[in-house]
């Protein structure tokens, strides 16, 4: 794919629905190659556009949000033609895979921190777009990395922020049912702590709007029904 002889793609680490992640070396640095695979079920024209756009969106987002002090992979090189992002190698595990083995204190600590990270994103007008426990990496020194910014958006609206949180809430319910209440509570505590006193009404509007999204027909809960 890349012609440069200094670049070596060595091992397929993970094959996701959208992209394949390879481990390798780039000018003697340990790196990941994130390769967005062509999807043959889509029209070529549409597919190319989606892959190129998401590669650009993700790289831009990774570079920008680093400025707020968030832990995200460092981008080294972008190849939009082949939809490849070369980024710094991070050794860690998906939160999804280790959640069950954590004690309550750790869970609370991690989810609070994640809440603060997402609040930082939101306050700066960034929407992650796909917050799941698969897209959160915990490293050996317990740093929390947010990854997979392919569905990132620039937005400062209450609606988009609420949708972002709502999607995460749904992932917790469907994949981590028994931990959901405890973890989401800790997450919201962390999220709230990033909002100053004068911004608390913004926080309240975002949270209130999650309920509004849930009551939009498809999400109505029995106890809220008349």
């Amino acid at each position, binding site marked *: 794919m890349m012609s440069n002889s200094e670049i070596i793609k060595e091992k397929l680490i993970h094959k996701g*629905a*959208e992209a394949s992640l390879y481990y390798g070396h780039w000018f003697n640095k340990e790196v990941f190659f994130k390769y967005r695979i062509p999807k043959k*079920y*889509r029209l070529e024209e*549409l597919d190319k556009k989606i892959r190129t756009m998401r590669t650009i969106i993700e790289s831009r987002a990774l570079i920008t949000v680093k400025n707020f002090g968030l832990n995200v992979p460092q981008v080294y090189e972008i190849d939009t033609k082949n939809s490849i992002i070369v980024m710094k190698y991070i050794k860690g595990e998906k939160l999804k895979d280790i959640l069950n083995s954590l004690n309550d204190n750790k869970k609370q600590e991690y989810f609070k921190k994640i809440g603060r990270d997402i609040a930082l994103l939101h306050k700066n007008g960034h929407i992650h777009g796909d917050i*799941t426990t698969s897209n959160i990496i915990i490293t050996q020194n317990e740093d929390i990395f947010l990854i997979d910014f392919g*569905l990132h958006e620039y937005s400062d609206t209450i609606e988009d922020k609420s949708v972002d949180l709502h*999607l995460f809430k749904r992932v917790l319910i469907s994949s981590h049912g028994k931990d959901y209440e405890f973890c989401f509570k800790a997450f919201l505590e962390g999220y709230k702590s990033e909002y100053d006193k004068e911004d608390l009404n913004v926080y309240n509007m975002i949270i209130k709007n999650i309920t509004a999204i849930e009551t939009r027909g498809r999400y109505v809960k*029995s106890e809220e029904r008349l």
Partner: protein
Amino acid sequence: MCQIRELVLGIESTAHTFSVGIIDFEGKVHSLVNDIYIPEKGGLHPILVRENHLNNFMNTIIKALTEARISIKDINLIAFSQSPGLGPVLKIGALVTRMLSQILKIPIVGVNHCIAHIEIGRLMCNIKDPLTLYVSGGNTIVSAFESSRYQIFGETLDLAIGNMIDSFARDAGLSHPGGPKIEELAQKSNKYLPLPYVVKGMDLSFSGIYTAAKRFIESEDFNKKYNLNDVANSLQETAFAMLTEVTERALAHTEKTEVLLTGGVAANKKLQQMIEYISKEHNARFEVVPLKYAGDNGAMIGWTGILRYNSIGGHDISETIINPKERMDQITVPWRI
């Protein structure tokens, strides 16, 4: 419970279809009769649909009994669609079922319509634990069974896919049902006009596609630079690619080994091909529910009624109030625990 052949009468009444299915406890369908309301113009008006079903339910039931060559007295259990759907329409099914249950002194079971779609698919396709893409006029859901429920992994945030296609078809002057006509027109085009591709995590939004497609046919360029075939093709390609992407995401996430496609829109060949493609990519078995049982039908209600009855029994009459907005992930599924 001591007869040789136990039969259930299933009544589907959530939207335009009033359907009666007679199915036995082994899963053999003895008859299935649909009465489908087609509006003269516009979409489904709940009150008009209700009128139609009120006028026709009796004939539909008699026809189903006649086709199965049985008397109403041979029925051992009666099931109806209790949720979700159009309120006034759900009430007809509930009313008829309660009445028959009391007259015949047989147990009654209320069924969630969306769960019934998955259960009839599991029965007809002989599939155990699928990831299901359920696409119809009223629903767009990616679901799989996890921790005693049919969890919803992805769904539409606004319009259902079938509703979007039908609404666009209507604006384009095509008669009801619009889906098959759009499919036919799309086959005549290779041209792609860009439409909004909106995927949020595993959720989807179709309202932007609808508006943009409508603008294409209202534009001055329509029938000059492009025609209806091209818009139909672009609409299908975009909307189905979105559905396929979220299904693949859910498949990677849940690691299921079977994929089930159901609902009225499952009849679309293009969508079938796309979902089959990603199923193969993930080494999963792919099945489409046979057309007769993919759309709304009474057999699926009957079969789900049997599953529930065999596992924890029927409902008390006081528990048979309709539930127009009930989500499938609110209910535990006792027969699968």
